[in-house]
Every structure is written in C-alpha cells, then in structure tokens.
C-alpha cells in the first residue's frame, strides 16, 4: 500500500544542514497497521510528512497504492491519504467551528450531502451533534483529537498517517481513542502508519513496527516480539528496556548504540 524506497530528506544548508531521513525504505501492506518508533529527532515525523506531501524537497521514491508520487499532490491523493497530528491543540483552526473544520475537505472535493456526512462522521467518532457548532477551545484534548480523526475520516481515505495521536492525552482518553482507531480499521479496512513513543501502544495497535535512529531504519519486527524481547538490534533492545520504567542505574548503562 505504501512503498517507500531510498527516501532521503535534507533540511537547511551549510552549517545548518541536517540529513533528517537517510536512505529509508519501507513497505506497508494494505490493511496493515504499521508502527514507527525511534529516537526523538530521528525523522519519524519527516517520513510521514514526506508521504503526506507536506515537504518540498526529498529524494527517492514514494508510491501509494502502486502509483508513484511527485512533489505536488493532487486532490485525489488527499482523498486517499490523510493524517492525524500529534498536538490536538495545534491541529484545529482556532477560529473555525467544528462544522467548518469538517466541511472544509468536503467543499474542496466538491462533495454533496455535506450536512449528513458531517453528522455521520461525528457519530463515528462518538461525538453527538451537539458538538457540531462548537469552537475547538470549547473541547477537551481528547474531544479535539476525535475531531482530528473525524476530519481525517470524512474523505474516506485508504491510508491514515498517525503522528503520535495520543501522546498529549491521558491514559483514560488514550484508551478510548485507541479503541476507536481499532474499530475504524476493522470496519473500513484502512491502513495505518502510526508513530508512537509508547511501545505499549505499538504492541497493542500494530502488526509490525520499524525502529528508526538518526534518519535510518535499523530494524523491522513483529509487534509480538516486543513481549518476548526477541529484537535483533541493540538499540531496539535498549528502547524496550527503557520502556519498563525509570531506573537511575539503568540510565548510566545507556550507550550511544
């Protein structure tokens, strides 16, 4: 479904040059839920943004659904690929009502029956019609993230890119959102590419996952291996160890693998 081949992304030049993604290749099958974990600043969001067409410069090949992608994406592409951002407070326009936020994609894509579609999608994310004309600041973080998911769903995409969709939410809301994402996937058969720092979330949500470090892909593994600890790369094992909780002595053993 998503084929990334030799993707490299460079930001800045001269002293400020940074190779954010370095010859990254990955294949995500249709209907799969694929996790992306790794060091902070290792280029996970950048990979997602490159797939989403939010970056101007990258090299390599990205194909979605067999079709090779260029720099500029068509409207049809966005009917197929949508994204949910990490920060529920930053991803909804503060001066638009929920109704406007959800109608906007419909208007751009010239779809009819907007009222009904907005109401349906609100129901799908378990928010009643009473939310329709509120402003984002009248919603809690979890409710906002539901709206962000609803916006991603409303065009009925095949792929949803999820950039740390629950890291700003507390555990009880996270559980609701993850259950919701699970239901959507079983009902609609969409493909997920999910970035998360929480290995518990990855183990719960994903079939397979990849580990990234300094722009490079270092390992792809089955999520089941998280439970057994059967990971091949030392950095992956260090991540797994660190996810068990804080231990001052353990921190001193961390190596720059």
């Amino acid at each position, binding site marked *: 479904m998503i084929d990334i081949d030799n993707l490299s992304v460079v930001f800045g030049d001269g002293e400020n040059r940074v190779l954010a993604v370095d010859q990254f290749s990955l294949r995500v099958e249709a209907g799969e839920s694929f996790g992306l974990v790794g060091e902070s600043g290792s280029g996970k969001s950048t990979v997602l943004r490159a797939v989403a067409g*939010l970056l101007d410069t990258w090299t390599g090949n990205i194909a979605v659904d067999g079709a090779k992608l260029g720099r500029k994406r*068509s409207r049809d592409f966005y009917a197929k690929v949508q994204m949910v951002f990490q920060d529920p407070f930053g991803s909804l326009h503060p001066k638009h009502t929920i109704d406007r936020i959800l109608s*906007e994609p419909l208007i751009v*894509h010239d779809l009819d029956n907007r009222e009904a579609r907005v109401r349906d999608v609100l129901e799908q994310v378990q928010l009643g019609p009473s939310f329709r004309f509120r402003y984002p*600041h009248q919603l809690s973080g979890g409710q906002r993230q539901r709206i962000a998911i609803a916006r991603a769903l409303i065009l009925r995409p095949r792929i949803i890119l999820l950039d740390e969709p629950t890291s700003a939410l507390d555990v009880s809301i996270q559980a609701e959102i993850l259950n919701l994402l699970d239901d959507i996937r079983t009902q609609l058969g969409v493909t997920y590419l999910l970035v998360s720092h929480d290995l518990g979330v990855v183990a719960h949500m994903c079939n397979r996952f990849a580990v990234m470090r300094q722009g490079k892909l270092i390992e792809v593994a089955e999520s089941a291996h998280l439970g057994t600890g059967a990971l091949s790369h030392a950095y992956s094992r260090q991540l797994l160890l660190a996810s068990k909780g804080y231990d001052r002595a353990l921190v001193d053993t961390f190596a720059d693998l």
Partner: protein
Amino acid sequence: MISAPFRNWLLSDTPDSRFQARMGRFYLGWLTFAKNPLALLGLIILVLLIVMAIFAPWISPHNPLSGELEDRLLPPSGKFFLGTDENGRDIFSRIVFGARTTLYIIGLVAVTAAPIGLLIGTTAGYVGGWVETALMRITDAFLAFPKLILALAFAAALGPGLENAVLAIAITSWPPYARIARAETLTVRNSDYLAAARMTGAGPFRILFGHIMPMCVPSLIVRVSLDMAGIILIAAGLGFLGLGVAPPQPEWGSMVAEGRSQILEQWWVCTYPGIAICIVSLGFNLIGDGLRDVLDPRGK
C-alpha cells in the same frame, strides 16, 4: 440588560447553528470589552460622533457654510455656543458637520488601507521566497518616510480635494498593516492546522483567505483603531495646509488652520475644533485598547 433565555442561547455550550456559535463568540467578546470602562467611554465617543454626523442638519443651529458678516468672530454666547469664525459662521455647526468629513475620511481609509496591508502581508508571509522579499522591500520603502511628509507629497501631487486626501492617507497607511499581517502569518504558517488545511487538498488562495487571514484580522483591527487617531490628525494636517477639503466645506483640521492667526485674541476659533480632534482621537485609542484585550489570541 438582556433577557435570560437570550443570554443562555448566546452562551450555549452546544450551539445549533454557525450563526449561534458566532453570535456567542461575539457576545463573549463584548462582555470582556464592556468590563473596561475606558473602552466603553471610547465607544460612547464613537457613537456620539456617528450620531452627530447622521443628524447634523437637525443638531446644528446655524448654516455651517455661510454666515452674516456682522457676526464675525463673536465669542461663545447663548446664540453661538462656541462662537463664530471670521466669516461669521457658527463654529458649533461647523464642528457638527465636520464630523461627517472626519467619519468619511477614517471610514474610507480603514476599508482601503487595511485590506491592502492584509493582502500584501499575508501573501508575503505565506508564499515566502522572492515574492516576500519584493513585497517587504516595497513596504520598507514606504515606511522609510514619515507618514505625514509622504501623505503631503501625494496630496500635493494629486491636488487638493477630499478624495485625494483620503487616497494620499490610504497609500501611506497600509505598510504597517502589511508588516503586522506578515508577522502574524509567520507565527501561524508552520502550524499543524495549516498543514491539515493543505491535506484537504485546498489551494493557496483558499488557505490564504480562509485560514490565514482570519488569524491576522484581530491584531489588524486593534492596530487600525489605534491608528485612527493618527489618521484624523493627518487629515487635519492636510486640511490645515489647504490640501484637504475644499472650502467652504467644514473640516476640523482646516478650521484650526483658519483660526491660527487669531489664536490669542479669538482663541475659540481654533480651540474648539482642536478639542474635537483630541476627543475623537482619544476615543479611538480607548476603543483600540479595549479591543486588544478582547481579540488578543495570547490572552486566551
């Protein structure tokens, strides 16, 4: 002040329509504004100015355009509240009619300069690259001259007359708005909600007008209302130098100018229009300050 059901409708957490949501937001803004007594004073001044302009023929006791020569330079009295000028015209009536000119000027400047500045600033900020460089250099070039001097130059080039004065002022007023709009655009252009807007497949125009401009408008409104005082003064300055309104149309600035030769003996001729200018400028300043509290996105 307003009935309880209406208030509940406005403040509803679950509005039923876009209109209700917008009105609720507006009402909340009004509540914040109304908490500030100085801002309310400013609003009262503005309302009085508008009332004065609309009902000028009924309010003014005398003809503002012509007077009797035997009434020349009379001090304030029961018949002429604020005295008369050297043509025997009632100064109070001229001030009342002058309100129309003042409103006309600031209204026109606001609806021309602000949108121009908004468009240039947001385009520069969003598009970036050479477009930004070019637009901002032009803006800087305008900003390099003192506003009054530049307005004077344009007014002199265009010739006297109210429309030309307005045009001159508008041409010189947009650059600060462009700067503000650009600064505001820079703070939002990397935001996730704009990335989300791009991911709907929307084109640059839709993003510029539908998503970026709404974020810039509040600070622009504040700035424009704070600028109104300055615009009134520039208009008065142009009038004072004979580049504004053609006589005998009453305009506060030119009224001050006409009285300047007799400022010691017949002080009322230029003092009262001067006070009118001060009060209205102050009013706009107070409104601007009040709006700042209401619209400041960081205050929320």
